[in-house]
């Protein structure tokens, strides 16, 4: 009795994790640290992770913490502390035992295929490496898609460092030329978006300040990555910001497949 239910909830979570970030109009996934700039010898930061319509307003779905990893300034994975899942949000602590920049991230890949077989519409969803064998030879009107999603945020104790910001060359990533924990109101940050390690020219970017509940408009900043994948964001005021980038092309590793990728991050902007 218990097993099918568990399996079902697992499937829903899986489906949610695939569909949410790819649909810009749907609910938004976010990881929100309470602070990103810390100055103590034994620093701790508490982090919320959830999925909701209003950025950083916990009213819809707690995020599954199993996919979230914490990396220390050397890039080594360290354990999150005190994880717990509530109805609307998940919470955990990060103990910053080292000086430097920590990364909190969740990254996943997947694939899906749509085709026609004997006049019937078929669908498949699975692991990236299985995409090449997912569709039978006689299939018609085949559409193959690789999907990548990445969700992250950064926290620094002491001086910002860059080791943990090294890109993995998988999916859509952000190479921060401006350090993500050195952002100030009215200043312009310069980031580079990369798809599988190459400039993600034309990636669509949306930046939304938190606190949507207390204003009438989204106040979203929209921009598009240039030929080299660069974007420039001028932060209008201090606060927490949610950045979401999406990218799609037909240059996937699997032959004839599209690749579709999303990158979402939370940044704290301090007042000057």
């Amino acid at each position, binding site marked *: 009795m218990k097993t099918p239910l568990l399996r079902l909830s697992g499937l829903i979570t899986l489906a949610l994790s695939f569909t949410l970030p790819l649909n810009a109009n749907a609910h938004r996934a976010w990881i929100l640290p309470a602070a990103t*700039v*810390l*100055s*103590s010898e034994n620093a701790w930061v508490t982090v919320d992770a959830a999925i909701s319509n209003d950025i950083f307003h916990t009213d819809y779905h707690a995020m599954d913490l199993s996919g979230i990893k914490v990396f220390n300034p050397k890039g080594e994975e360290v354990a999150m502390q005190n994880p717990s899942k509530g109805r609307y949000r998940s919470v955990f602590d990060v103990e910053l035992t080292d000086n430097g920049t920590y990364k909190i991230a969740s990254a996943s890949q997947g694939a899906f295929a749509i085709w026609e077989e004997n006049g019937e519409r078929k669908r498949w969803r699975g692991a990236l490496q299985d995409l090449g064998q997912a569709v039978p030879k006689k299939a018609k009107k085949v559409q193959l898609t690789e999907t990548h999603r990445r969700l992250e945020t950064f926290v620094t104790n002491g*001086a910002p460092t860059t080791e943990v910001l090294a890109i993995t060359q998988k999916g859509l990533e952000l190479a921060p030329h401006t350090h993500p924990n*050195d952002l*100030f109101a009215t200043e312009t940050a310069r980031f580079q978006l990369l798809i599988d390690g190459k400039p993600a020219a034309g990636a669509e970017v949306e930046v939304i300040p938190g606190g949507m509940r207390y204003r009438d408009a989204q106040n979203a900043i929209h921009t598009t990555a240039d030929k080299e994948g660069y974007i420039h964001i001028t932060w209008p005021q201090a606060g927490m910001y949610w950045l979401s980038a999406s990218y799609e092309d037909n240059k996937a590793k699997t032959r004839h497949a599209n690749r579709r990728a999303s990158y979402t991050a939370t940044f704290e902007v301090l007042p000057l």
Partner: protein
Amino acid sequence: MKNTSIAIALLACTTFAHGADIEMRIEIPALDVAEYHRPYVAAWLETDEGQFVANLSIWYDQKLRNNEGERWLKDMRQWWRKSGRTTQVPVEGITGATRPVGTHTLTYSTQASPFSELSPGQYQLRVEAAREVGGREMVTVPFPWPHTGTVRFTQSGDSELGTVQLIITP
């Protein structure tokens, strides 16, 4: 007894005239608040383009156990960005305990670092204060360097800082 103290004061003045020809005065205002904590204060020199030059004085709570007082250094957020996050505290001759309400005078010499190392140009003295359960404020005092004759540069804060003065008597 009284005479002695005057003599000592005079002696101090003489020493002052030779060794220290720059005065920085920072006023910590009295505030009518229910819960008052002495502010953390950072004073440093920058070029007029905002390039950090040197720390002059940093006041923070050094008495808390396990260096807990360092936790709020980041609240002096401009200083933290320019210098604090790359500075290992305490720093001898720079860091010290928080100070009470009143005007505090610190003296420096044109013959000693950091002033002796300033190349001619436009600079600014920055003084930033952050108070637990209170506010944060930064006062900027622009000044050209070097100087002949006595000059006094004054700027005032509105909330966490009173008058900040830089008096140069080379």
